[in-house]
C-alpha cells in the first residue's frame, strides 16, 4: 500500500475545486437518470394521485397511515447524522470530522427536503398544506399547538432552517475560494454567496463563534426533532405505539441510519469524485466504530420494546407484537433484525471495518433494515388495534411503491446538483488538519 502523502494547501484548493469545475459525461448521465426517475416514479404518480384522490394509495379504514409516513420517518431519520454528527464532533474538536462533514450536512438538508415532499404527498390535498403553518384561518382559528403534529411542523421547519444556515455558514470561506478560482458569471455569483469574504482575523473569529453557537443549538434540536416524530405515534393510544421508549428508539434509529447513509455517500464521493486523498481509512474506521455502538444500542432498545410489551400484560400489546413478529409481515421483522442487529456485528473485525466495499454493502443493508423498521411501525400497528372487528390490512399500492422509489431519485438529484455548487469537502477545515506552514517544520 502506497504511503499517504499529505496534500499541500494549494493542492487542497485544486483537488476540491476540480470536483466542482470539471464535469464529465458520467456526471451528466447520472444526473439525467436520477432526474428522469424522479419525474417518472415520483412526480408522475403523485400528480396521478392528486387527480384521482388518495384512494390511489393503499391506505384504508383501519390503516390511515402508510408508506408515505414511514418514508417520512425514514428520510427525517436519514437526515439525523449529518448535522448532528457534524455539530457534536465540532464541539468535541474531533479533527477527523473535517473532511466528511460538508457532505454529511448536505445529506441532512436533502433528506429533510425529501421528507417534506412526503408530507405533501401524504396530506392528499396539497394545496391546503399551509394549514400546517402557525397562521390563523379565515375564521381566526389557529392550529392546535397541543398536537404532536404541530410539534412536528415546528421542529422540522426549525431543523430545516438551522441545518441550511449551518451548512451555508460553514461554506462561506469556501465560496470565496470558488470565487477566486472562477471567472465571469460564476465569479459574480460566488462573490454574492461568499458575502465578500477575505479571510481577515475578524471574519474568522466571528465565524468561529457563530459556528460554535449554531452547533450548540443544533444538537438539542436534532434530538428533539426525532423525539417529536416519535410522539406522532407514541401519543396515540394504539397498541405497540403507545410506549415511552419511542423517543430514544427513534433518535437512536435516526442517528444509526444517518451514519450508515454517510458511509454510503462517502464511498460514492470518494470513488466518483476522486477524493481518496481526503476521505480516508481513518474516517471509515471511526464511522464503523460509531455504527457498531449505535447498532448495539438499537438492538438493546428493540429487545426492551418487546420486553415492555410482554411485561405490560396487555392482551392488545401481545396481539400487536405477535402480528409484527409472526404475522404477514413477520419475515420483514426478521429481515430487519438480520440487517440492523446481526450484519453490523461484522464490523467488529477491523479488516471489514476498513474495507470500503464491505462497509458500503453493510451501510446499504442497514438502511434497508431501517426502511423496513419504519414500514413495520406503520403497517403493523393501526391495522391491528384492539378488537378484531377493527382489524384490517395494509399493503402499499403501486403508486406508493413508485413514489418510494422516486424519493431516492429526488435525493440523488439534489445531491448531484449540490456537488457542483458547493465544495463537497471543506477546503479550509481540511487545511487546518494539515501540518502548518512553518519554516521550522519544513
Amino acid at each position, binding site marked *: 500500500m502506497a504511503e499517504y502523502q499529505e496534500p499541500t494547501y494549494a493542492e487542497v484548493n485544486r483537488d476540491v475545486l476540480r470536483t466542482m469545475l470539471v464535469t464529465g459525461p458520467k456526471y451528466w448521465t447520472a444526473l439525467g437518470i436520477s432526474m428522469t426517475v424522479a419525474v417518472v416514479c415520483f412526480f408522475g404518480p403523485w400528480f396521478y394521485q392528486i387527480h384521482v384522490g388518495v384512494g390511489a394509495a393503499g391506505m384504508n379504514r383501519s390503516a390511515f397511515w402508510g408508506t408515505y409516513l414511514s418514508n417520512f420517518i425514514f428520510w427525517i431519520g436519514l437526515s439525523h447524522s449529518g448535522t448532528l454528527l457534524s455539530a457534536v464532533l465540532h464541539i468535541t474538536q474531533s479533527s477527523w470530522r473535517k473532511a466528511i462533514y460538508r457532505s454529511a450536512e448536505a445529506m441532512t438538508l436533502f433528506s429533510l427536503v425529501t421528507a417534506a415532499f412526503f408530507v405533501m404527498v401524504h396530506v392528499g390535498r396539497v394545496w391546503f398544506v399551509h394549514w400546517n403553518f402557525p397562521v390563523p384561518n379565515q375564521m381566526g382559528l389557529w392550529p392546535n399547538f397541543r398536537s404532536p403534529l404541530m410539534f412536528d411542523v415546528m421542529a422540522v421547519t426549525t431543523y430545516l432552517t438551522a441545518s441550511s444556515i449551518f451548512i451555508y455558514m460553514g461554506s462561506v470561506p469556501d465560496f470565496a475560494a470558488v470565487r477566486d478560482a472562477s471567472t465571469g458569471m460564476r465569479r459574480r455569483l460566488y*462573490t454574492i454567496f461568499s458575502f465578500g469574504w*477575505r479571510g481577515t482575523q475578524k471574519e474568522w473569529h466571528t465565524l468561529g463563534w457563530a459556528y460554535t453557537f449554531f452547533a450548540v443549538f443544533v444538537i438539542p434540536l436534532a434530538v428533539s426533532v426525532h423525539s*417529536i416524530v416519535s410522539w406522532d405515534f407514541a401519543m396515540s393510544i394504539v397498541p405497540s405505539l403507545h410506549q415511552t421508549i419511542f423517543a430514544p428508539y427513534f433518535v437512536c434509529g435516526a442517528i444509526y441510519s444517518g451514519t450508515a447513509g454517510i458511509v454510503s455517500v462517502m464511498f460514492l464521493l470518494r470513488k466518483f469524485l476522486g477524493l481518496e486523498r481526503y476521505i480516508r481509512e481513518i474516517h471509515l474506521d471511526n464511522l464503523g466504530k460509531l455504527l457498531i455502538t449505535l447498532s448495539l444500542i438499537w438492538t438493546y432498545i428493540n429487545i426492551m420494546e418487546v420486553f415492555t410489551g410482554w411485561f405490560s400484560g396487555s392482551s392488545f400489546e401481545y396481539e400487536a407484537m405477535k402480528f409484527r413478529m409472526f404475522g404477514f409481515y413477520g419475515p420483514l421483522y426478521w429481515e430487519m433484525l438480520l440487517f440492523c442487529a446481526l450484519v453490523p456485528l461484522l464490523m467488529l473485525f477491523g479488516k471489514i471495518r476498513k474495507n470500503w466495499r464491505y462497509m458500503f454493502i453493510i451501510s446499504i443493508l442497514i438502511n434497508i433494515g431501517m426502511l423496513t423498521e419504519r414500514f413495520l411501525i406503520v403497517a403493523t400497528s393501526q391495522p391491528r388495534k384492539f378488537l378484531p372487528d377493527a382489524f384490517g390490512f395494509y399493503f402499499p399500492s403501486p403508486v406508493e411503491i413508485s413514489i418510494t422509489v422516486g424519493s431516492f431519485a429526488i435525493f440523488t438529484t439534489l445531491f448531484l446538483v449540490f456537488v457542483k455548487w458547493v465544495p463537497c469537502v471543506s477546503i479550509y477545515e481540511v487545511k487546518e488538519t494539515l501540518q502548518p506552514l512553518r519554516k521550522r517544520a519544513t
Partner: protein
Amino acid sequence: MASNILGLFRYEEDFIDAAERLKSAGYDELTLMSPIPLHDAEKVAGLGKSSPVRRFSLAGALLGAFGGFALATFSATVFLLPTGGRSIITFPPFLVIAYEMTILLGVLFTLLGFHVVSGLPAWRDVPYVEDTNVDRFSVVVEVDEKSDPEAARRILDEGGADEVRDLGEY
C-alpha cells in the same frame, strides 16, 4: 490620505512575527488575512477570547422561548375551544413549542450577530489578494501622513515577506 501596503508571507510564523512588530512600531490599522483561522493572529488583531455574537444568541434564544410560549398561549385563548375539561393554557405541549422557537430564534439571531459583528456582506472594494485564500498569509498596513511607509515596508521585508506591494488608497 491613507495608503495601504501589503506584505505576502509563505510561513505562518513570519506572518505573525511581522504583524507583531508592526503593531509594536505603532501601526494600529492592520488587516491580517489567512487561509485558515489562526488564534495567534487573532490575538495580534486584538480580538478577545469571546465575541459579541453570544449576546445575539442569548437574546434570540430568550425571545424565542417567551415568543413560542406566547404564540401557543395566544392562539389557544383567542378562540376558546374547551375540550374534555383540559386546561386552556397547558405547560407540557406549549413548552415544546417554546423549545423549538428558542432554537429557531437563537439560530436566526446568531446569524444576524455574525453579519453585524463581522461587517459582512462587504462587497465594496477592499484590499485583498487571492493567494490569501489558498496558501499565503497577508498583512495589510494602513499608513497615513503621520506614519512612515518606508519603515512599514522595511519591517515587512525583514520579516520574511515574499512580496511587498503598494496597494494605494481604498
